[in-house]
């Protein structure tokens, strides 16, 4: 074989080999859905996504566009299943079933802190690899979302949407209906507790992913945005741990130590405590065994667990409702939902 032929063969093979697999496509489609829904600007250009006639709330339009596009493929089931099923799994990941950072990783976004790039490249992530724990190597999965209503209201919520085929339009409407338990008006109402949790969780997972990618700056930026958006969030403990590790990665040791001290005082029995102690904040004191500290720890832990239980119960209720809508009694029964 001469070099010309070899060149052509290699180019053809490379064009094929460098392309995505079906799994790559599906994974990214679902993750993109999540990211568009989770970002505060999620529906800012939703007109391009929504295919219905007239106007439609942007968040729903954006979701409907992609979820609708899933229809007809097994991704359709996957998409709705993830939106529904990941609720409980995600909450467990960070909540009751916490075994560290084992919740599925979410894509890193630069929406918070990463510097903007030149004209059209809007984003950046400057990663490497610094796995926190075993979970870091897991394949991408979808960040849990409770419903399209999870999209926080954007400044301009109603946009005209381009027209599409009646079938596609109907499909999108069905998708919205399936994924949105509270009716079409919900997307324009202020964020509900469920949606706050979903967004909080998604952002936290992005922060974790950024940390894994050695992008402490982005992780810290996300944590700071979490502080602003959810000052009384449910996942404050995880957030605090992420902040400390981010500070360490940025070599802001003094701040890391200060945060670590506060963290260990507040969450002395946290599953992240050891991780925090092993970080650059290693000098942070181990909690004393004084009665006051123990009482404070019990109180903090109890409050946190109480909040988690409430969120979990809410997530379960929503899961049951969505399963009921999608699969009927069989789905509810399979999920252990009571009638």
């Amino acid at each position, binding site marked *: 074989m001469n070099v010309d032929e070899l060149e052509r063969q290699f180019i053809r093979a490379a064009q094929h080999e460098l392309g995505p697999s079906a799994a790559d496509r599906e994974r990214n489609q679902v993750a993109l859905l999540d990211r568009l829904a989770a970002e505060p600007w999620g529906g*800012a*250009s939703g007109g391009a996504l929504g295919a219905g006639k007239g106007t439609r709330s942007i968040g729903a339009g954006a979701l409907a566009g992609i979820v609708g596009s899933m229809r007809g493929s097994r991704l359709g089931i996957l998409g709705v299943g993830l939106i529904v099923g990941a609720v409980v799994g995600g909450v467990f990941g960070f909540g009751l079933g916490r075994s560290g950072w084992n919740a599925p990783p979410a894509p890193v976004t630069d929406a918070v802190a990463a510097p903007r790039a030149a004209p059209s490249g*809007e984003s950046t*992530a400057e990663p490497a690899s610094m796995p926190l724990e075993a979970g870091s190597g897991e394949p991408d999965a979808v960040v849990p979302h409770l419903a399209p209503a999870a999209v926080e209201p954007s400044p301009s919520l109603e946009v005209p949407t381009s027209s599409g085929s009646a079938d596609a339009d109907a499909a999108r409407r069905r998708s919205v209906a399936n994924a949105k338990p509270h009716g079409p008006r919900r997307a324009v109402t202020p964020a509900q507790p469920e949606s706050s949790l979903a967004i909080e969780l998604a952002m936290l997972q992005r922060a974790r992913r950024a940390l894994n990618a050695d992008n402490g700056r982005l992780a810290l930026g996300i944590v700071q945005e979490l502080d602003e958006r959810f000052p009384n969030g449910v996942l404050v403990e995880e957030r605090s741990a992420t902040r400390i590790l981010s500070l360490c990665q940025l070599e802001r040791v003094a701040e890391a130590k200060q945060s670590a001290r506060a963290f260990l005082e507040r969450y002395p029995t946290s599953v992240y405590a050891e991780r925090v102690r092993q970080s650059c904040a290693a000098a942070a004191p181990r909690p004393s065994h004084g009665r006051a500290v123990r009482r404070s720890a019990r109180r903090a832990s109890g409050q946190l667990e109480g909040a988690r239980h409430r969120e979990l119960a809410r997530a379960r209720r929503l899961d049951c409702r969505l399963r009921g809508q999608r699969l009927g009694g069989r789905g509810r029964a399979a999920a252990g939902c009571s009638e």
Partner: protein
Amino acid sequence: MAPDQARASVPEFTEVFRQHFDFVWRTIRSLGVADALVDDAVQEVFICVHRRLPDFERRSALKTWIYSIAYHTAQNFRRSARRREASELDDEMMSREPGPSEHVAGAEAGRFVLQFLDRLPRERRDVFVLCVLEELAAPDVAEILQIKLNTVYSRLRLARVDFRTALERFKKSDRRVEAT
């Protein structure tokens, strides 16, 4: 163009995603983004496309416009990552003898091309990826990279020479393996 007409001419995001995902994915990989970050980079591209699609003015082809976004996104991603994992893979690749060229597996060809691109000076790599792998027209490439058309041609010529040299080296080592 009237606003309504302009809006009507904007393609739907889902369609854009469906039609251009493979292209974006391939581009991001070819442009040196580490494997572990390809998902993130591809999603960033589409998020940017989503944001900007309503303002897309059709001054260039949609594919060119998307490529431009992908190109800048890839630049951002590879700036600091610099394919750490890939460098390890690179060493591994270099220490491995290639198989018979007549039976070059697609995966091996893909790795070879990625490895070649890794070593190519960035200016030549960009042009090679765009012109050869993505088969974009030279004027489009000039627009994306913001360089003169003649520069595109000259970089492409040099990149092709490099590619051919690498292939010849590969072929020689292949014969050596076959002879043993």
